[in-house]
């Protein structure tokens, strides 16, 4: 229990640190939205000055940070100058879109990686295993960008898949089933790109962890007791090899919001990635901070989740962690 408490405290502390750093970096970068506005002769300097005060850009940094922190605690993430709307709703919509993509991709990737990795490890060194190793190595070497672009080209050439966006035109008029189908069609290529990007690494990790365990005496003993093959591989070997995989899973959860930026931008998926990109370029301070903070929360939560899972899955951790 103490272990979990410690990890949670650690996570909260981390979040504070991240928010502070993000705020500082964004606030300290040269230029802000208003520089653009100043160039526009139609807007009077007084209006700009008024906006300045309204958004408290003339106050010292610590004060701004404190105010912002207070606001965040109330669920208010500030205001976006570029979109001229509160940040929070903007983020939620985009985050939802991103999660749609990444959760599907992560689930698929893990559901494929586990059996593939276990199967490969059980045939370690033989032809099927070599084929898997070779394929995963090749996929790893190909940059995500190339994968995404490649799929895009496929879409353009064949016309089987839409080349971008979340839904087709006229989506609102579709029947629920048609809506679902349309969404799925749009999701296919981005999800495929994400899966192809993450699957190889997962497979290799699963394979390596399981292969190491397959040599262990307790597995040989279980074999000697007549434990059936499938149970041996999944109930015993995979279970014993779970620790590094749980950490990896935590990482997967952690990168649910941040890992798909590239794919979203290339495939025009209206997720958090493109939003962040635009906001950074436009110096839209609060959107950037909000977006980064959200990603960080996921990352920290993912790791915490992994810690909890690890604690639950491995009884040896209960006794390994002792108070000072």
């Amino acid at each position: 229990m103490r272990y979990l408490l410690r990890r949670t405290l650690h996570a909260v502390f981390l979040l504070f640190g991240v928010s502070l750093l993000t705020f500082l970096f964004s606030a300290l970068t040269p230029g802000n939205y208003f520089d653009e506005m100043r160039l526009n002769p139609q807007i009077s300097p007084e209006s700009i000055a008024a906006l300045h005060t309204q958004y408290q850009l003339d106050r010292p940094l610590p004060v701004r940070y404190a105010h912002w922190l207070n606001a965040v605690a109330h669920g208010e993430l500030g205001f976006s100058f570029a979109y001229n709307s509160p940040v929070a709703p903007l983020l939620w919509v985009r985050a939802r879109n991103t999660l749609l993509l990444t959760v599907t991709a992560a689930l698929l990737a893990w559901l494929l990686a586990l059996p593939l990795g276990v199967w490969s490890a059980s045939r370690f060194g033989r032809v099927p295993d070599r084929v898997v190793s070779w394929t995963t190595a090749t996929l790893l070497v190909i940059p995500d960008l190339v994968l995404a672009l490649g799929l895009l080209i496929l879409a353009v050439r064949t016309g089987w898949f839409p080349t971008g966006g979340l839904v087709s035109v006229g989506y609102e008029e579709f029947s629920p089933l048609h809506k679902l189908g349309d969404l799925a069609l749009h999701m296919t290529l981005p999800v495929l790109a994400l899966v192809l990007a993450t699957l190889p690494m997962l497979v290799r990790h699963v394979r390596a962890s399981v292969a190491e365990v397959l040599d262990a005496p307790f597995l040989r003993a279980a074999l000697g007791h007549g434990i059936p093959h499938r149970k041996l591989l999944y109930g015993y070997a995979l279970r014993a090899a779970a620790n590094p995989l749980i950490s990896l899973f935590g990482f997967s959860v952690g990168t649910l919001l941040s890992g798909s930026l590239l794919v979203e931008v290339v495939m025009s998926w209206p997720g958090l990635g493109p939003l962040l990109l635009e906001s950074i370029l436009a110096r839209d301070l609060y959107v950037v901070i909000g977006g980064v903070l959200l990603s960080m929360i996921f990352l920290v939560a993912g790791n915490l989740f992994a810690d909890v899972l690890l604690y639950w899955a491995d009884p040896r951790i209960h006794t390994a962690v002792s108070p000072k």
Partner: protein
Amino acid sequence: MGGKCPPLVQEMTPLLEVKNLHVSYSARTGEVCHALAGVNFDLAPGEILGVLGESGSGKSTLAATFLRLLPSNGKIQKGSVLLEGENLLEASAQDLRKIRGGRIGLIPQEPSSSLHPTLQIGQQVSDVLTAHETLDRRSLNHKTSQLLASVFPKDAQRISRSYPHELSGGQRQRVLIAQAIACGPSLVVADEPTASLDPTTQQEILHLFRTLRQKLGLAMIFITHNPALLAGLADRILVLYAGRIAEIGPAARVLYSPQHPYTAALLRCLPSHFAESRSARKAKPSVIPGEPPDLSLRENGCQFEPRCAERMEVCKSDEPSAAVVNELHEVSCFKFAG
């Protein structure tokens, strides 16, 4: 044939018949190491056979061969192992799985690493039961508790919920024993079951074996390098040297009037405790000179010859075959050439 069962049980078919077993390992360098080179013996139902051998004698290979658990570089060159008439070496993968744990129980070496690190003890014992029997939940739990109670006179409930790292070496060994006898096999192979234990724990485990033998009528193959452990436990003893049987016979005979020079030399090596006078203590223990043979070189002649105090000319060139010295007592040595 080698190592016949005692006459009282000769009417019954032997439980296990090992005939001319040859097993070898191939190293990465291409060298072939002959771990077992022609082993013959029988085992009667309910009999405890002690296999006495030091490192390199092939004793662990023997255990692994019965259950076909040899590593990938191990190969059974020839021979047969008949369990109640069926050849284990020709069993299909399906049958093999049923035999392992179902008809032959294994107590593996290294209690510290032969249990799954993150599964509860009760679960690990139940898994062996479900591997061979279809039981509903209640019967499964009942049987598991019974099994654990038979090896843990007290505390069985607590142990069932514990994990391996929470148990002592002796306790882990008991769990391994429970797993081995779970499905009522007719034969249990114990590979150095007391190797890493304290002397008092060792005695407790040996006592447990005796009790189980009485209650369950198990046949057992008890593999060890320490002859003293077999006294009072084994019915017969088989002495293994360099992959061959040096001597096999009733325990009392082998321990107290060993016929093979190796057995005799080995028994003389044991520290003579309780020596009352100072001159007997700190006297150099008698030793077997030299090193065990390199099993990748198949030398002509008797494998023990280079270290034997009673070697003869013929020992260099020919390999002795089993000669009957006494009723049921056979020795492979030219001293008893027959």
